[in-house]
């Protein structure tokens, strides 16, 4: 299963949701599907995408938040599963694309290679109730739809191939991304209030 295919499948659903993606291949693949103002591309600070998602979800209970994470990033912040489990924001879907590789930084194998480390088991052990582990596009799509319908904190660990895009580059400065993302949220809040 390819991450780009998974992103393509859920892309139409992301139009009205707050999306936080990790750096590198995942960010580029999302951008190439079509950049939107409601996307925040965390191009560094590995591990914190889910923490940003938690902050968004807790402070914007009427929005849906989708975090696109990876095994390399989440391994840098495993405590996030415990914090998510403790506060269990019902409006957050945390997707972890597990390619078993630090693909964007040279392709070194990560701890999840060959199934040695099971991120879904770690998420469950941290206390997250709804954790799906999927390795086919169909199962991923089903898990995503179920997560949206569930109205409860959901984690999806998706096993994907260690492949990325053939090119990198965005016409978007990093502070510009932050300003734009905040503005989109504030406009939604004003529209909802009026």
């Amino acid at each position, binding site marked *: 299963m390819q991450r780009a295919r998974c992103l393509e499948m859920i892309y139409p659903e992301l139009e009205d949701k707050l999306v936080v993606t990790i750096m590198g291949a995942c960010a580029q693949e999302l951008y190439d599907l079509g950049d939107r103002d409601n996307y*925040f591309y*965390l*191009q*560094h*600070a590995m*591990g*914190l*995408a*889910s*923490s*940003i*998602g*938690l*902050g*968004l*979800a*807790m*402070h*914007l209970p009427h929005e849906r938040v989708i975090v696109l994470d990876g095994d390399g990033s989440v391994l840098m*912040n495993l*405590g*996030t599963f*415990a*914090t998510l489990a*403790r*506060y269990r924001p019902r409006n957050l879907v945390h997707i972890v694309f597990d390619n078993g590789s630090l693909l964007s930084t040279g392709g070194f194998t990560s701890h999840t290679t060959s199934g040695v480390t099971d991120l879904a088991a770690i998420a469950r052990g941290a206390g997250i109730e709804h954790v799906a582990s999927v390795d086919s596009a169909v199962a991923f799509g089903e898990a995503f739809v179920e997560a949206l319908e569930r109205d409860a904190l959901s984690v999806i660990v998706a096993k994907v191939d260690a492949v990325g895009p053939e090119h990198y580059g965005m016409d978007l400065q*990093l*502070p510009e*991304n*932050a*300003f734009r*993302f*905040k503005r989109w*949220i*504030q406009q939604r*809040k004003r529209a909802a209030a009026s």
Partner: protein
Amino acid sequence: MTVSYDNSKIIFDGIRAAGIRSISALPETWLGLLLGRAEDDPDVQLVQVAKEEEAIGIAAGAYFAGTPHVLLMQNHGFLAAINGIVSLAQLYHVPLCMLVALRGHWGEPYPWHTRGGIVTEGVLRALGIPFEYARDPEKVGKQIREAFTFSQSSLSPVALLLTRDLMES
């Protein structure tokens, strides 16, 4: 020495008076009474993290959401959060209002706190993070308000260092 009950209350009241109702924190001794008040206040949303760097992400989320937010941590937690501060907050111009318990400084009896205390100011300077020391309970409320205001106008992390003079009694 014990943690100052009165000054913990003054700091908490200062956070509230600054219009802040959202707090992320990793508990530590000096912050214990303060966090207890936050927990008991139904108007205040408190997020306890497993490691301080998480709080940088949570604070960014709160900022994007438009919710005034303050981070409470020990200086060793600040040291543990540096990559998030640099590669999220500073890189993306996200403000952070950090109240940092300054352990390991003048009067510190515990050896394990000392090295972190000695380097804290130098690290703040190296990172270009504006900071002030909070020593006086009569001034700390104003300092919190000003720290928050400055973080928002500069789109920068700022740190208010909570000293032994303020936190112990």
